[in-house]
């Protein structure tokens, strides 16, 4: 069974069989605008929650993606090296950033589910 969770920083985390795929939401990509560069983390790197995991740059500015949970990077979406715009086109699908293995799978429970996130975004407008 897979489950999806959302952070207040507008990342989504899709948990499936112990592996978590991380990306940013449609709301986040719309706010950022066209992405032109993405620096992905190194595979096999252990990163603590809150530490920098990736850097994303729009035409105007750079911002960082912080590690939403503590874990080890298992896979990165290398397509984004050449096609950062994939994040704008398909943020919830082909525009995923990386997959990680969590140290404590329980960490996911603190995040918002689909409906809680929808309400959270609605409040921001």
């Amino acid at each position, binding site marked *: 069974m897979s489950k999806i969770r959302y952070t207040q*920083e*507008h*990342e989504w985390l899709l948990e499936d069989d112990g592996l978590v795929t991380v990306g*940013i939401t449609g709301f*986040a990509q719309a*706010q*950022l*605008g*066209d992405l*032109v*560069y993405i*620096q992905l983390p190194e595979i096999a790197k252990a990163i603590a929650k809150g530490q920098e995991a990736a*850097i*994303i*740059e*729009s*035409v*105007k*500015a*750079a*911002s*960082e*993606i*912080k590690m939403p949970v503590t874990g080890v990077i298992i896979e990165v979406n290398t397509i984004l*090296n050449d096609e950062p*715009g994939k994040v*704008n086109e398909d943020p919830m699908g082909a525009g995923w950033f990386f997959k990680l293995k969590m140290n404590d799978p329980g960490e996911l429970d603190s995040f918002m589910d689909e409906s809680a996130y929808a309400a959270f975004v609605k409040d*921001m407008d």
Partner: protein
Amino acid sequence: MKETIYMNTVTEHLAHTPLYKLHMELGARMVPFADYEMPLQYPMGILKEHIHTRSKAGLFDVSHMGQVRLTGENAAVALETLVPVDIVDLDINRQRYALFTNEQGGILDDLMVSNGGDHLFLVVNAACKQQDIAYLRQHLSGQCTIEELSDRALLALQGPEAGAVMARLAPETAKMIFMDTATVTLVGVECFISRSGYTGEDGFEISVPNEQAEALARLLLAQPEVALIGLGARDSLRLEAGLCLYGHDMDTHTTPIEASLSWALSKVRRAGGGRAGGYPGADIIQGQLASGVERKRVGLLAKDRVPVRDGAQILDAHENVVGQVTSGSFGPTLGGPVAMGYVEIAHTQLGTLLHANVRGKAVPIEVAKTPFITLRYYRG
């Protein structure tokens, strides 16, 4: 993601241009810029807006810029005391790029000057306009009349199809070439237009009374080639065209020579010319023209995909700091990062390999020719 990205709430005291309602209606994302609330982008997005301007025609609201009229017989002679540029012999219905310099040879602002026959028409930067007008009043009052035209908006129509669009609406504009100016009737009202802009493309800037600005913008947007373009793409377009942004690529601490703007210094105002000197900082600027400068502005191309931005240090092969980036972004036409910055003169040869410090990582960059694109001004 950092919270700050979402904190683009605009504060209350910002001014609005006459096109504010239109920007909101067309879904602009508004940001504070030079005390105005201005459109950063529209739903099309910066990359597509940039490409649209390079391939068709983009309409920009630049009403935040200052428009000033100088009248009086001595206006040209008077203005020459503040700029290293030939104003006296500027032909009627012609425009010229100029710079206000200070006593140290630094740049107070850059501006466009056109000769309207019985007056001079100046366009100055939004962020500098109050200071520029005060400066003009301080130095030129008594020699000419200085009027801020705050009752007028300014639109820019830029791109390879701008000429065709303007010719459809005002056929007499077809014979204008780059840096020509004219007074034409659009939406039933007198507009001052120049065939110039800030994108490297053919195009026009149109000064229109505030009351008719929205009607004119809607008329232009009704033309199939035209889309509204925000300040985000305006910045990437001017950067690809190698054009300076005041406050970034030049300021009071850079001289026109250091800024690689020697071309803007008219021959008649240089040493040996008929009206040599006679503007603030002339001795310093003449000295630099004769014996060179220690650093100057150059174009920079990154040999990596990572954008190199304003403020990044420039390093030589031994990791000595030899300069600083003053503008940098992604160039949508080039499909890669483009930048400009100031570099010590020993490292300014085209093709010199340097590094930029981006978040602690040395990104290879190369000193490159500007403009980064082919300019497409209409020269007849």
